[in-house]
């Protein structure tokens, strides 16, 4: 996790590195250049009139940050919070957004060439590419699509 805490690392050190997290049987990955930090679950304020996948808003050192439940966003059932449940804080396009995930796994290094571009099928629209590492499949999340309204 050393890479994650060190937000001021050179861009090159972050290149091609992805934070992985499990969701059901699958392993997902998110570009580490968008990841600011990983925190444990915090008290949240529910937002009236907001879509179902918006878990709430947390206070991150004085800054309100909306939090998205990734399970709900992918159309899955909400899971009980456990000790492993984490919030990944992203900074994407000047927007701070938290993602509630069941756990975080590891940081992997994958080159663009190793990935296969994923086609929009079956409404699975937040995945941009796929690759295989050590017999496991990793699905790469397209942040832009995940956070577009």
């Amino acid at each position, binding site marked *: 996790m050393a890479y994650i805490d060190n937000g001021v690392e050179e861009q090159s050190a972050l290149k091609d590195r992805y934070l992985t997290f499990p969701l059901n049987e699958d392993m997902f990955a998110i570009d580490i250049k968008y990841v600011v930090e990983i925190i444990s679950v915090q*008290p*949240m*304020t*529910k*937002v*009236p*009139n*907001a*879509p179902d996948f*918006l878990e709430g*808003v*947390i*206070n991150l050192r*004085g*800054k*309100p*940050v*909306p939090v998205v439940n990734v399970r709900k966003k992918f159309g899955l059932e909400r899971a009980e919070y456990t000790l492993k449940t984490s919030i990944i804080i992203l900074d994407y396009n*000047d*927007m*701070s*957004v938290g993602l509630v995930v069941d756990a975080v796994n590891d940081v992997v290094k994958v080159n663009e060439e190793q990935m296969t571009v994923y086609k929009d099928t079956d409404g699975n629209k937040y995945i941009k590419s796929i690759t295989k590492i050590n017999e496991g499949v990793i699905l790469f999340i397209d942040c832009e699509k995940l*956070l577009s*309204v």
Partner: protein
Amino acid sequence: MGLENRDPIMDTFIFETNQLLEQLEDIMLQVEQAGDISEEHINEIFRAMHTIKGSAAMMEFDNISTVAHRIEDLFFKIRENNSVGDAFSRVCDIVFEGTDFIKSQMAKIESGEAADESADSLVAKISELLGEMNGAPVEASKETIKDENEDTGFSGIKVLVRFEPDCKMENVRAFSLINELSKHCQNIDSKPRELFEDPTSSDVIAKDGLELYIQTELSRDKLEKILLKQMCVESVSIQSMEAGEKNAPSQNKNDTSAQGKQSSAPAKTVVSKQSLINVNVDKLDALLDFVGEIVIAQSMVIQNPELKGLNLPNFYKSAEQLEKLTKELQDVAMAIRMIPIASAFHKMNRIVRDMSKTLNKDVELVIKGEETEVDKTIIDSLSDPLMHLVRNCMDHGVETPEERVKSGKPSKAKVMLRAYNNGNNVIVTVSDDGKGLDRDKILRKAIEKNLLPSDAQNIPDQKIYECILLPGFSTKEQVTEFSGRGVGMDVVKQNIESIGGSISINSKPGEGTVFTIKIPLTLAIIDGMNIAVGGMSFFIPVASVQEAFRCKTEDIARDPYGKEMISLRGRYYDVIRLHRKLGINTEIENLEDGILLVVENNENTVCLFIDEILGEQQVVIKPLPKYLQSLLGAKSGISGCTILGDGTIGFIINTNEL
């Protein structure tokens, strides 16, 4: 602290130059109004251009420095002739053109673009004018400057630097020396002035030494040290000059023993400085953020659940004292951000001037209440709306002088800007004494564009007038350079609403139009009423709640469509159930069981139904996170959020958006 990573020197350059440009424009407008340039004004313009030239050259913006240089030349000539003669209006136009050019370049620099637009045509224009005034080739001006730089009304220090004999390239040595010196001193002038353009400069320096006229706060010893450290410098002699002493250099030329005077001269410049400092707005924002955090932390302590039920009279006494102090701290932090609205008003002078000329209208801009203070961020977002409104007045409101005389009005029209405080709001009005709005024409157009229903004949005039603030509305048949495209006025409404303000229009045919803008004094901290709905708590600005009451069954009326109304002192008000609007389930469904708040809702007064009132406290408004804003859309009723005593987030309700 969120400050941009721009070079601080660049920041200062941008700030100073912009300030000088504003000053210049003000002077020029005064000059133009007076119809003549006084000697004082000439000097001020000369000085401003000189500073711009110098700092632009230092920052290597050659185009800016060239323009400033030529205008400086021009004013040098004017000063020499002691009059502008018949070229007055051309001089004014050229200075305006010059400031516009520099402004446009500055805007580019500020946004990080390359400011490399060519100034050739402008420079040619100035040179031509200069040539005419000289009655001689333009080149002459350079000569005069070289001979006359003693006459700059200069106060400061004169330094004579001699380079080692045979050091060669004296002009280059002089240049690097001046460059080094410019890091420590302001307003450096040298003799000879043109180091590179003038082929004889090296010889002159070798023979007579390099004369420098500088203003600095450095001590004499330090200055000497800096100068002696430079390459090939053989000797340095420093003399001070009395402030305002006109022919100082020539008087002091051989006075090398005037050492006793030095220490007093630099001190003088320090004293004459105002006790004002320029602070980056980001720092003020940070300060206010911190004060906000303190307010939050304070309520975390005082309303700590662990204190519940304890008998702590001394604690609460101290807490009260702390609350008082933080309130004062907050007021001060707020007051620092308040600046007079004058800066926004004065920008309009220029627009009125330019448009008067182009549209052939004779208009005077009257400004009242320019000392009214408003939060800096509000002023920034007020500039654009003001500009559009003034343009609208000039273009659509005010008639031509002939028309005005025909209808029995003075031929000179008035556009008035006015600002004053009204409770927690600032009212800004933009008015003209022109022909007023054409109600029927606007109505026709509004119906044509489907902005109003076709049977809208009987709606109040104000509503009709407000149509001109809707997107895509323009009654002007012809699109002009300034307005009529139908964009602009809708931006006005948007901008004003984005800072929590409102705008209304009043007009009388033949007498004029008044735009009234109401804006909050400050945006950052408000008194909030803490209310509960279905187990969630929200804040409503206390200022927007007129009263709160419980209703009786007999006061409730329902129409067949399910609309609920409540009678209060003989009047019926629509009921808005907050829990339904926000999609929250609550146990309190009966109107009799909850509380009703009388609030404004899109210009109607309505009763807002809530579960209960929890209390009142100061809340620090934070804008909604971007992502949340786009998820919720514009009319969610939630306009901002705040951090509560227990560290969680609370939402602020805007009753106008329900």
